[in-house]
């Protein structure tokens, strides 16, 4: 009878019970800060004040929130699925490029060549848009592309990779090769995505100026909502039966198979979801940062995503967010103050985290907290 009851639990209740009350509260506080406090501090507080939030800070935090979404997506596949992808930068960039096409079309005739075509196409002496650009001025179609292109690429690649049970380092290296090959492809001018320079010099989004503070705040708020949505979705996924099977596959794939599950579809589902989340993050990233180019697909970028997750703590959902913020804030501080040492720091971070902090910062905090009451009881 009890199993019946749990089956009958309405979806909404299951959904809301995926997170504890404190977690919902924290999420609400985060959204309140992003949607109310930040705009007030940016627009209403005068520029000289100590509480004023600069446009630079908003862009930086907005950018890092996109990264945090990618990190959560990466955590779903790595922390819960045990599959280390070194090619997530590809999905991020695909989403970015898809939305970038829309932004390029929004420039209209305001480009340097005053043409209906994007500047780089005029430069290449192209007379019309290539077929895959058709409909790129339609926001709905582009939004579909943002989701569908990473999903299709991930599905096709994942189907073949998981079907032949490629896993572990083999899978990691092949994903790295995948993003590397895609980077080479996008570097070519003939591919039709601006070659080396990618897309930049955006003017408008939904008809509003990209540089206007209001537009920035709206984008910032959307990113915060998307990040919150990602966290809720991820939480719900991993507490569901699906997530439990996934974790079981991570820990003992053969046993799960012997029980009668086919790991292929579980892995493939989480892989595609992860890719789609990356694509959405990429689409939000491009209008805020104002540029997308093939270097987003470089293998180094994708590996960096893994280190955000590792620093924060794998297998926790708040960990990747913390990791993305810590590493990227450190990066923007280092590259300004000590550009020479950033790579040393990053390299050391890779080594120290893997050697000494296998569970990341969240794991460290949990261990410390678990130890204290013990000592107190003693």
């Amino acid at each position, binding site marked *: 009878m009890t199993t019946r009851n749990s089956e009958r639990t309405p979806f909404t209740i299951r959904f809301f019970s995926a997170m504890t009350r404190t977690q919902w509260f924290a999420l609400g506080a985060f959204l309140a800060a992003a949607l109310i406090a930040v705009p007030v501090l940016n627009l209403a507080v005068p520029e000289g004040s100590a509480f004023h939030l600069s446009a630079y800070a908003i862009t930086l935090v907005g950018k890092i929130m996109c990264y945090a979404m990618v990190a959560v997506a990466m955590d779903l596949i790595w922390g819960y699925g045990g599959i280390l992808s070194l090619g997530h930068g590809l999905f991020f960039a695909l989403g970015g490029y898809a939305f970038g096409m829309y932004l390029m079309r929004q420039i209209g005739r305001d480009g340097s060549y005053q043409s209906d075509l994007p500047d780089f196409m005029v430069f290449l002496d192209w007379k019309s848009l290539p077929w895959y650009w058709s409909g790129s001025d339609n926001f709905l179609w582009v939004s579909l592309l943002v989701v569908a292109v990473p999903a299709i690429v991930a599905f096709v690649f994942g189907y073949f990779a998981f079907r032949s*049970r490629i896993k572990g380092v083999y899978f990691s290296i092949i994903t*790295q090769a995948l993003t590397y*090959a895609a980077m080479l492809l996008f570097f070519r001018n003939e591919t039709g995505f601006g070659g080396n320079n990618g897309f930049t010099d955006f003017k408008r989004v939904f008809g509003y100026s990209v540089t206007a503070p209001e537009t920035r705040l709206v984008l910032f708020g959307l990113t915060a909502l998307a990040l919150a949505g990602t966290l809720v979705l991820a939480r719900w996924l991993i507490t569901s039966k699906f997530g439990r099977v996934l974790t079981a596959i991570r820990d003992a794939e053969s046993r799960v198979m012997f029980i009668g599950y086919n790991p292929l579809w579980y892995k493939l589902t989480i892989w595609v979801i992860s890719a789609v989340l990356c694509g959405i993050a990429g689409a939000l990233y491009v209008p805020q940062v104002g540029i997308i180019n093939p270097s987003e697909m470089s293998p180094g970028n994708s590996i960096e995503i893994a280190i955000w997750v590792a620093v924060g703590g794998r297998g926790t959902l708040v960990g990747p967010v913390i990791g993305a913020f810590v590493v990227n804030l450190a990066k923007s501080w280092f590259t300004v103050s000590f550009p020479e040492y950033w790579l040393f720091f990053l390299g050391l971070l*890779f*080594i120290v985290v893997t050697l000494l902090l296998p569970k990341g910062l969240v794991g460290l905090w949990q261990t410390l907290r678990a130890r204290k009451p013990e000592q107190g009881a003693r």
Partner: protein
Amino acid sequence: MTKTIFVFLLLAGSLSARAALDPAQVNQLAAEDSSDKVAAIQLLTQSADPDAVRVLKAMADDSLFLAGDKAVIIDGDKAFDAASGAAIAMPDNPESVTVNNRIRGELANALATLKLFDPDAGVRLASAQKLQSSVSPAMAPLLARALEKESDAKIKALLVLAHAQADLASKDPIARRAAVLVLGETTSPAIRTLLLPLTDKANEPNNRVRYAAISAVKAIDGRLSATENFGRVFTGLSLGSILLLAALGLAITYGVMGVINMAHGELLMVGAYSAYGMQSIFRAWLPEYVDWYLPAAIPLSFFAAAAVGALMERTVIRWLYGRTLETLLATWGLSLILIQAARVLFGAQNVEVANPSWMSGGIELLPNLILPWNRIIIIGFALFVLFLVWVLMNRTRLGMFVRAVTQNRAMAGCVGVPTARIDTLAFALGAGIAGLGGVALSQISNVGPDMGQGYIVDSFMVVVVGGVGQLAGAVWAALGLGIFSKLLEGWAGAVIAKIAILVCIIIFIQKRPQGIFALKGRFVD
């Protein structure tokens, strides 16, 4: 056969050389009008008289003057009659002959052509070779005369080609056809372009000549594509041997420890920078032996890379056993540190590592196919390293231990193999081989901090395709991937080739997840 007949025809039709310079022609050199001068130069050239060289040279040196109506050469305080060369009294007020750029070019051509009649065979050969790319139809009679006089077989062959090229514009269809037939025997893209217009009816009204030209172009095309493919296979082999050097080390470390060393490419870089360091040492202290820095760099780079590898294993990789994905990340961190260290030590720019003089040049098999020495030597070097590794793995105690740990670590430990020490040694060995690969790489590509990055994916692909723990697998996979990718690059471009190979590898893994050569045995994860 056709060649000899053709030469015979030329001999029969050629004119005999004149004895002395015609004073009228020489005087025309000093004419007012440039076109007259050019005509005079051409006439003098066609006389093929060695004496003409003297006059034309003087003209090119601006020492030809006009005194009255006679051309004279003035050299310092002496004057000579231009036509006869006899010394004469200094004329009163000689007018200098204007030599403009057009004339100067004409003179250079004429002097070059007249070199065909130089008594020195070396000069004639050089001149004939130069003519291959710059022959004009007007030279045909002159070339015929040179052919007739020439005794050296090699020069003669070159002259036949040059003459045929000049004859392509001949008015006589028989001569044209003969020229086409001669040129059809060659394998040169330049001659193909020369023949191509003749395959068009608009340019070549004579059917027999046109058909001959069409079949000649076809024959040249066939030979060209054959040599091109051969050249691609060769560059593929040399790429494959670099991949082999990179992948051998990776195969050993991956085989023994199941660890992907993402810093492997940076070990290549360490080897290449060692070569650079050795070159600097030789330049500073042993400049007379600088060509021999390379042999000295080989042991240095091996030990430098091996030391870095052993250090990496002892400090980082050792502590991550059984956590392969984390090892991947940690070694990536190591690679970032090595790259930045190279930037700090040697600067972010590429450094210059010169080929020793004995490695430059190449074997010219055909006009469009040159096998460079540095690539040949690299292939040989890779084979040599492969042989050493084979000996080490199959004929020494260390090799036996390494193979034992690869096959079954626990069992090897039980029978007394010091597995921890074997790990370090195997890692150092793999790193050292990568260092050797770096030396080889320094000879054919840029040496810079980022040079290793591009090779890790490729060399891992070799390991994936070849299978783990097998030298034979790595060898076949490396050579196969090298040749396959160069052949693909030939007709699809580098990027498409890379993507196609990646797709092929993914499909290949579907069929044979263990690689070409799988270790036999029972494994469970």
